[in-house]
């Protein structure tokens, strides 16, 4: 049937009409083209081969995940577990190959088998256990993430070099992830269009009971469908890890939502029965183009999220309107068709105006000046510490006449790699990176090195790549100081608990290492429990409340950052600062206030705005060809009630 329509349209109106028809028939494609035009108009760096290949690379992981999710959504299910399964598969590969010496080929097979197994469990729970797909895969989301943390013991594992080539380029220009994405897309299109299982997906998604009564083995098909989704998740995980040369237990966190968004933007219905691989690819490209373009345009990290959300809604809206309009005009000819076409065009115009207007309004308008351009890639802006780095850096940049662009990776190593890549390809003069993960930032920083762009690392170092300088405070030393402070306050004996940072991050590891080192000197201190609370205040509150149930006699708390310390203080209530001494880390404004109030005994203060200031300083020096020190240690100090007044971050 598809062939028929194609033939009749091309025959009737020639090339131009066919293109118009194609665009009208596919709202997502229209939206993509509108975006491409808008981005090219706004940024001179956008429409270059390098950058477009970057967009491809950045879309690859989401697209591969989304192809798998397309199968599930077409059959009227949902798969929330793909992000976690991707991380688990990559972790299994790295763990077996790197840590246990399993031959790489076998390790790859194991990784794919992991994806299949996770999918089969999903499928089994849904088809035979009669769990709603949402619940079954939500459970798998948690289980797979947990298992990847268990296997990796919370730390990233280096990826075997032979597999890491999947993250390289072929012939010096064609990125392998793009190739993998295209191949997986073709496979997905083939499966959906030509195979028994693919055609069954449409039937099951359209009407499961009718499919069953027509002799389709719906339960077995569901097993296969979710297993296929698992295979694609495993492939995405392997590509993701090879780009970063490291398998991260926390990788691809939240990617399932991007994948689902890509599928729906591509024209599939969550009610099942419709959807295509080509649409899904377009959906993933729309997301990647947006992120890339907003980076290039230096749109504020916070506004980026708003813009992305608005564009997702508009893209799907465009498609819905198109469908309503598309139902009529074929036979009606002129009649009502024109008005509806006008609606489609009108909406397309609205999208364009909205995107162009919003981005040009939001971006800082720096591109025209001749000041040196410096990019600052922060791991997250969801934590006051990094916000202070940002404000220190911004103030210094203003003083020195530097155009500073700040990006926020939201603690996602892969997104940070994308952002670094965007800095590199649009020819920034210097890059400051605050790595989400020291190993994972390696490949992207190497690319910047290759382009001869000076790189300054701040707060955390970058492994296996050259940085001109590292500006950091010493986390291990700080950890030791924190342990010493608590132990001395308790007089060398007492019972304490430790709240650890987010598993898998270097700050959490190094601070924990420092705590352990520091406590060795105090055999009288008994550690009752060590639990992670993810650097988060709310989680700090919850975890501390739980620990208090088990250990009401606790006398001291060491928290790996101030946020968790403040959460713990909430849980302790009136005990805080009286019978229980809490020590935090970072010296954030809230933390220092708590020190002044006496609820927080001490905070091991870094000086984040100093970090930011010095980083910009060094970046400019490196750009100007001046000599910079290999490492700049910004001192940490213990802030207590006595010296808090004189301390400023």
């Amino acid at each position, binding site marked *: 049937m598809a062939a028929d329509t194609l033939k009749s349209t091309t025959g009737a109106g020639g090339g131009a009409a066919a293109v118009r028809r194609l665009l009208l028939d596919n709202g997502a494609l229209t939206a993509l083209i509108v975006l491409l035009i808008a981005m090219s108009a706004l940024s001179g760096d956008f429409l270059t081969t390098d950058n477009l290949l970057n967009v491809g690379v950045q879309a690859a992981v989401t697209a591969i995940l989304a192809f798998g999710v397309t199968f599930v959504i077409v059959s009227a299910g949902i798969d929330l577990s793909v992000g976690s399964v991707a991380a688990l598969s990559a972790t299994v590969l790295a763990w077996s190959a790197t840590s246990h010496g399993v031959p790489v080929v076998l390790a790859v097979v194991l990784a794919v088998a992991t994806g299949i197994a996770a999918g089969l469990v999903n499928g089994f729970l849904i088809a035979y256990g009669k769990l709603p797909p949402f619940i079954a895969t939500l459970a798998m989301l948690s289980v797979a993430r947990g298992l990847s943390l268990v296997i990796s013991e919370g730390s990233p594992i280096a990826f075997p070099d032979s597999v890491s080539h999947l993250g390289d380029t072929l012939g010096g220009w064609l990125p392998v992830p793009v190739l993998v994405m295209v191949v997986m897309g073709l496979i997905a299109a083939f499966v959906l269009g030509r195979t028994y299982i693919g055609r069954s997906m449409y039937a099951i998604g359209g009407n499961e009971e009718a499919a069953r009564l027509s002799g389709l083995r719906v339960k077995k098909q569901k097993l296969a469908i979710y297993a296929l989704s698992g295979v694609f998740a495993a492939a995405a995980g392997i590509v993701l890890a090879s780009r970063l040369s490291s398998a991260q237990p926390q990788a691809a966190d939240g990617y399932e939502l991007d994948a689902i968004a890509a599928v729906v933007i591509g024209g599939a219905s969550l009610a099942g029965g419709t959807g295509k691989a080509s649409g899904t690819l377009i959906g993933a490209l729309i997301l990647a183009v947006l992120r890339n373009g907003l980076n290039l345009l230096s749109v504020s990290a916070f506004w980026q999220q708003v813009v992305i959300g608005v564009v997702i809604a508009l893209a799907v809206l465009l498609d819905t309107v198109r469908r309503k309009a598309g139902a*009529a005009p074929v036979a009606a000819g002129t009649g009502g068709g024109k008005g509806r076409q006008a609606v489609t065009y009108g909406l397309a115009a609205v999208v364009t105006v909205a995107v162009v207007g919003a981005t040009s309004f939001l971006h800082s308008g720096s591109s025209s000046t001749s000041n040196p351009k410096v990019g600052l890639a922060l791991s997250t802006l969801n934590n006051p510490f990094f916000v202070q780095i940002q404000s220190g850096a911004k103030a210094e940049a203003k003083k020195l006449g530097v155009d500073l662009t700040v990006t926020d990776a939201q603690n996602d190593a892969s997104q940070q790699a994308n952002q670094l890549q965007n800095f590199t390809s649009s020819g920034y003069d210097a890059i400051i990176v605050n790595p989400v993960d020291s190993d994972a930032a390696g490949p992207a920083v190497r690319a910047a090195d290759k382009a001869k762009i000076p790189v300054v690392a701040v707060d955390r170092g970058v492994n296996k790549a050259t940085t001109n300088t590292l500006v950091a405070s010493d986390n291990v030393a700080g950890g030791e100081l924190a342990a010493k402070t608590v132990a001395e306050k308790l007089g060398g004996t007492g019972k304490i608990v430790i709240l650890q940072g987010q598993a898998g991050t270097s700050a959490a590891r190094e601070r924990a290492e420092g705590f352990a080192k520091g406590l060795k000197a105090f055999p009288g201190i008994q550690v009752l429990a060590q639990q992670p609370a993810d650097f988060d205040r709310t989680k700090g509150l919850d975890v501390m409340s739980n620990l208090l149930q088990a250990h009401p006699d606790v006398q001291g708390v060491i928290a790996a950052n101030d946020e968790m310390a403040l959460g713990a203080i909430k849980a302790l209530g009136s005990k805080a600062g009286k019978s229980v001494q809490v020590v935090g880390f970072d010296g954030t404004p809230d933390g220092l206030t708590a020190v002044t109030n006496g609820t927080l005994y001490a905070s091991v203060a870094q000086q984040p705005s100093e970090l930011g200031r010095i980083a910009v300083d060094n970046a400019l020096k490196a750009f100007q060809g001046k000599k910079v020190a290999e490492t700049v240690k910004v001192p940490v100090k213990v802030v207590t009630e006595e010296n808090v007044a004189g301390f400023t971050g």
Partner: protein
Amino acid sequence: MSNADELLRIEGIRKTFPGVVALDSVDFDLRRGEVHVLLGENGAGKSTLIKMLSGAYTPDAGRILAGGEEVRIHGAQHSERLGIATIYQEFNLVPDLTVAENIFLGRQPRRFGMIDRKRMEADAAVLLERVGVPVSPRALVRELGIARLQMVEIAKALSLDARVLIMDEPTAVLTSEEVEKLFAIVRRLREDGVGIVFITHHLEEIAALGDRVTVIRDGRSVGQVPASTPEDELVRLMVGRSIEQQYPREPADTGAALLSVEGLTRDGVFHDVSFEVRAGEVVGVAGLVGAGRTEVVRAVFGADPYDQGAVRVAGARLRRHDVSAAMAAGIGLVPEDRKGQGLVLDASVEENLGLVTLRSATRAGLVDLKGQHEAAGRIAAQLGVRMAGLGQQVRTLSGGNQQKVVIGKWLLADTKVLILDEPTRGIDVGAKVEIYQLINELTAAGAAVLMISSDLPEVLGMSDRVLVMAQGRIAGELAAREATQDAVMALAVSSPVSSTTPSTPTTSEVETGRGR
């Protein structure tokens, strides 16, 4: 030009869909206090016409006048404001809300911003009383039978103070007793001055209830006649030719037993059901609603499990609760709920026709799409499915053509034993006869047909033998010549074995024939 009694006038209405002209130059008018029957085959355009009155579609050309003024109806609420209420075949009720909430959905009486439940229920009780249905306003809609759902819909329409009431095949799912009740209500409304547009396929209802009849054929109004017009004439207007025989059964030579069912039992549902169907034979299954007929055939087909007994096809025993095994042995099922169980509504005609043969057309995981396409084209032409093309969405086909697609997918699979569950429910006379012809062709080719039907004249007219079920058991078997409506009904209301009490039928209404 308008007279005071005229509620609605439609002039030269045209409406097109992709590839189809649904309506063209259709005229229609409705006066106060009359029942105007809209008659036409499925797909003739009746539903499209009423959807334009209810605001679901807007016409491409032509005028609609309400109370003498030209209007463009956009949306259901606008239609309601004009005093037009529509009761569709598929009810628009929310299963988990109460009757009162459904009647006043979106218009609940409020007090201080809160819903005034007391008043709402009192008002609902008055309306239900007027309709004459003994249902508590507080009952959940989910728990009501289909006849009562319809009464609730009527009460809802009354609550809107409708001057025009459109009823789309209200009698299709009702028993004759319920039909009588409905007619009484409609007559009362007519006396109150309400204008009623009534769609039905049962010709005898026209004389009993109608005042005027507008016949629509292939999207055009072909005539307006008084309701007293003889049925033959109505059929001729509707089909465009005269149908000589409503039930053209041509008995074929019967061969060996193809399907034999022995002592089939599912506790509490059906008990000790045994029968056989021979090659070339049509066996009808009659009985009351709730007698367990659908449950038995679903178990035979493997769609549901059973506890005891056996199903054999050509002597070979089938695995229990295994649709694939039943299909492999050559059984096919055309289910009662066409849209819910028979079709993938948003898929194309081609995809639906290819559903059953999907697996056999697969080699090494790949579907022979070309072969499927050719097969679908061939069978669609053979069955005379009226469509814009194989790519048309099945949802947009008329009921009769949808049913042909469901039957077609089984014909493609070389089905030897075809089970038809209410095969002509909601289908017009012309398409019915085509389906009967199809049954003749099947049996002539040596297949066996088992047909459940609540339409007694159909069972009597088309079956070589009639099985009557009552309370989950086979109450008796009648040969074609001894099967009369009285004989069937006597068995249908009997209590076959009283030793154990199977599930009592959900409704005690008797499904008597309403044929002539």
